[in-house]
C-alpha cells in the first residue's frame, strides 16, 4: 500500500491522472472528468510476502506496453509488484450522436500495490 515518492525503489503505487479535457476526449466522455491510470512499480525483495494481483487493471497495460517495446521478457519470475486492490469506475459516454452509454467497469483503478 505504499505510494511512490521517488525516494525509495520498493514496490509502490504510482499515481497518474489523465484529465479527459487535456487529451481532447471530453466531447465524447460525459463523466467522469478524468481517469486515474495508476500503476505499480518498484522492487520486490524476496523476503516480502506475496499476494495475488489482477491482470485487468491499467497496470497490465503499462507492463504490456513496455514488454511490447522490447524490454526483455522475464522468465522464472519470483516476486512481482502488482495491484493488490482495485476499484470499479463508472463511465457515461456518447457512442455516437444519439446514444449515450452508462457502464460500470470493474477493476478499472489500481488502489494499492503489493509483492506477489
Amino acid at each position: 500500500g505504499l505510494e511512490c515518492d521517488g525516494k525509495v525503489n520498493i514496490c509502490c503505487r504510482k499515481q497518474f491522472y489523465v484529465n479527459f479535457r487535456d487529451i481532447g476526449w471530453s466531447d465524447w466522455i460525459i463523466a467522469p472528468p478524468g481517469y486515474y491510470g495508476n500503476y505499480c512499480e518498484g522492487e520486490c525483495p524476496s523476503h516480502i510476502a506475496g499476494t495475488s494481483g489482477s491482470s485487468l487493471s491499467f497496470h497490465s497495460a503499462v507492463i504490456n506496453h513496455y514488454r511490447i517495446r522490447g524490454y526483455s521478457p522475464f522468465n522464472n519470475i519470483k516476486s512481482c509488484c502488482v495491484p493488490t486492490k482495485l476499484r470499479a469506475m463508472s463511465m457515461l459516454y456518447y457512442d455516437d450522436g444519439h446514444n449515450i452509454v452508462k457502464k460500470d467497469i470493474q477493476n478499472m483503478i489500481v488502489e494499492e500495490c503489493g509483492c506477489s
Partner: protein
Amino acid sequence: DGARSECPSCSLPTLQGDPAAADTQLVEAVKRHILNMLHLKSRPNITHPVPKAALLNALKKLHVGRVREDGRVEIEEDWSSKSVLNEPEQASEIISFAEAGPSQDVLHFQIAKEEEGDLSLVEQANIWLYLKLSNKSNRSRSKVTLRLSQEGKGGKAVSEKQVDIKRSGWHTLPVSRTVQTVLASQDRSLMLKVSCDLCPEAGVSPVLMEPADKEESHRPFLMLLVRESAAHTHRIRKR
C-alpha cells in the same frame, strides 16, 4: 546497476529520462486501456450531439447522473445497486434519443452498437414519452391510451398503456421484446409510430420531434438495460 530483476513491473524502466516522452507514452497507454475496457476500436466521433437539455433531463429521470453547479455531470455511483442486474460489470445502460422519422408521428431510434449481433440480452427497454397538457385541457377526462406500433412491419402493435393525465409529465412504455429483435438485426434501426386515443378530446399531446429552434428538453428517448450474454463475456475472457 544491481542484478536485473526477474519481474516485469520491478524492471519497468522507471519513467525517468525525458519525462514528457514518458508521459506521452503513458497517456497513449491510458487511451488504449479505456477503449479496450469499453470494447471500442476507436474513440467515437460525435457528429450531432443531443441537445444538452434533453440529455440532462434523461439523466435525471433515470437517476444515472446529476448536474453540478458548474454544469458538469456527475455519475450516480450507486447506479449498479439500483440496477436490476446482479453483475453490474457486464451491464450497460444505453439511452438512445429519438431522431425524426419519415412522418411527424414516427420516431426513429438508431440503437447503440454496444455489443456485436444478438449477443446482447435486453434486461429492460422502455420508451419515455412526455405528455403535455394544453391550457384548454378537458379536466373531466383523466386517462388516455398511448400506443406504439412498429413502422415498416405492417403497423404491428408494440406497446400500449393507459396513462393518467392530471398534469404534464413523462410516461414509459415497455418495448423489450421488440428491441431484442432489433438488436439481432443488421441495421439496429427502430421506427415507432406514436398514437394516442382521446388525446385531442382531453387537450393533451405527446411531445415528439420538435423543430430545431424549439426548446428540446422533452425529446423522446429509449432507455435500454443490456447485459452481455455469457457467450460474449466468455469470448472476451478467452481472448
